[in-house]
């Protein structure tokens, strides 16, 4: 009987105690404003892990941080040779691919946990759930197009995996850099932090980050998209005035 009770107790602890660690995270800046001088942004994420809210964890733990940008319709096109020239031929549309996706970790992912664990939480390029428009409706995309999406977005700095590392400061404290390139999409970002120990997840939390155009940049964008005819008219007026002014100044 004693043995059974012990096992029941153990199972209960395992079930209830799944997020056995307390985790808090924060960003150096939770609202990124795109203004005229915007050329990308570097943020710092701080976090602390404790076995309870007061006791810091000092033994080995791993941190994986996933930042996801707003999802948008993304088209990938493939060039093919038609006659003597190369033209865009086949294309694949991802109705909602993240516009930004970054994974930072304290060690190479393969050393932190097994592929199956990452797959179950959808962590990493290879496990990111992605669907594409196909003739049969929404379906898993062709592997070539999927890897092209990652390659192209990585080249423009929008997808980053294992390029940034999480640094252990000590006493359960850790930090990492989050780099947003100048071409970052605007919208709401999710920053998820996962704490791993012995290959399984011990704690997770999520905080949000907003990227938005501000001030004049926001006004110009809204004007161009909300009132395109009037924007065009203003553009012409500005051009005529500037051109006339340039002529006057040029003569002097």
């Amino acid at each position: 009987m004693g043995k059974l009770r012990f096992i029941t107790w153990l199972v209960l602890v395992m079930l209830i105690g799944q997020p056995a660690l307390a985790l808090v995270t924060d960003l150096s800046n939770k609202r990124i404003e795109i203004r005229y001088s915007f050329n990308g942004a570097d943020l710092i994420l701080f976090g602390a892990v404790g076995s309870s809210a007061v006791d810091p964890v000092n033994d080995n733990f791993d941190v994986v941080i996933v930042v996801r940008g707003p999802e948008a319709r993304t088209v990938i096109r493939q060039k093919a040779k038609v006659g003597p020239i190369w033209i865009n031929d086949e294309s694949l549309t991802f109705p909602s691919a993240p516009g930004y996706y970054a994974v930072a970790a304290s060690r190479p992912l393969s050393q932190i946990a097994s592929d199956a664990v990452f797959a179950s939480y959808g962590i990493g390029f290879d496990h990111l759930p992605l669907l594409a428009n196909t003739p049969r409706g929404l379906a898993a995309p062709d592997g070539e197009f999927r890897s092209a999406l990652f390659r192209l977005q990585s080249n423009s700095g929008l997808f980053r995996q294992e390029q940034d590392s999480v640094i252990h400061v000590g006493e359960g404290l850790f930090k990492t850099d989050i780099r947003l390139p100048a071409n970052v999409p605007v919208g709401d970002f999710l920053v998820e932090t996962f704490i791993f120990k012995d290959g399984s997840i011990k704690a997770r939390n999520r905080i949000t980050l907003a990227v938005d155009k501000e001030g004049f940049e926001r006004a110009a964008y809204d004007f161009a998209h909300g009132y395109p005819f009037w924007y065009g008219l203003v553009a012409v007026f500005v051009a005529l005035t500037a051109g006339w002014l340039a002529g006057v100044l040029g003569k002097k």
Partner: protein
Amino acid sequence: MPLYLPIAELSMNIFLVIGMGAVVGFLSGMFGVGGGFLMTPLLIFMGIPPAVAVATESNEITAASVSGALAHWRRQGVDVKMGLVLIVGGAVGSFFGAQVFTYLRSLGQVDLMISLAYVVFLGSVGGLMFWESVRAIYRQYKGIKPKLKPREDRHKAWIHALPFKMRFRKSRLYISALLPLGIGMFVGVLAAIMGVGGGFVMVPAMIYLLGMPTNVVVGTSLFQIIFVTALTTIFHSVNTQTVDIFLAVLLLVGAVVGAQMGARLGLKLKGEQLRALLALMVLLVCVKMGVDLVVEPTELFSVGEAGSH
């Protein structure tokens, strides 16, 4: 110093943008051309999305043509009636050009269309110009003087056979309105799909097809370009929201300074030498565009433009 362009949605170095304007302005001041055919490919080459490059360059050309057109206006160098007929044609052409542009953009084929248009038009215009200027230089070297045809014989018979004849006093012409309408329409299409003013087609067409006297050709062409590029700017703004005023104004600042210096250098060179150099430059852009179409790209895949629905 980086500057975020809110419509293009990317960040560019402000001095690089002004510098690009200055270099193109210098060349256009030296050769007396608008420079759209140099600026649009340069913008695309610098990573500006093609749709933004074409639409923004239309806006810049409007600005760049104002002072020239005013100067010609004061010198009585604008045939307003002819200009208006060209503008009507240009408006129709630009409207359809912008529609085609928007449609092809949604198919992901707008880059191809821009490249093909550049290769075909720059290739043929540059080739003709090069041939003509080399012949002129050769003749001058040999001392041959070409015989000028009398003005009355300049029109081909089929031009006189066209209906809807109109009198253009300033150009001293009595020709069918269909001809300038057609030319205006063609140039309007080019303006909308290539991000050019179209002077490189308009000026030869006015001289060789319409037989306009040279003192009103450039002024009338600039007059027409202002209106057609202004309309093109509005069409692109409504269809695709790709006109970046800030980029256009910055390019203009550089272009104004560059054009002043270019014009000074241009005065020191002979007309046919200038034309030969210009032709070479036109052909160079054409060849660059052509090679990019033919050579296998290192990356076969590309991400579609964000706005293409």
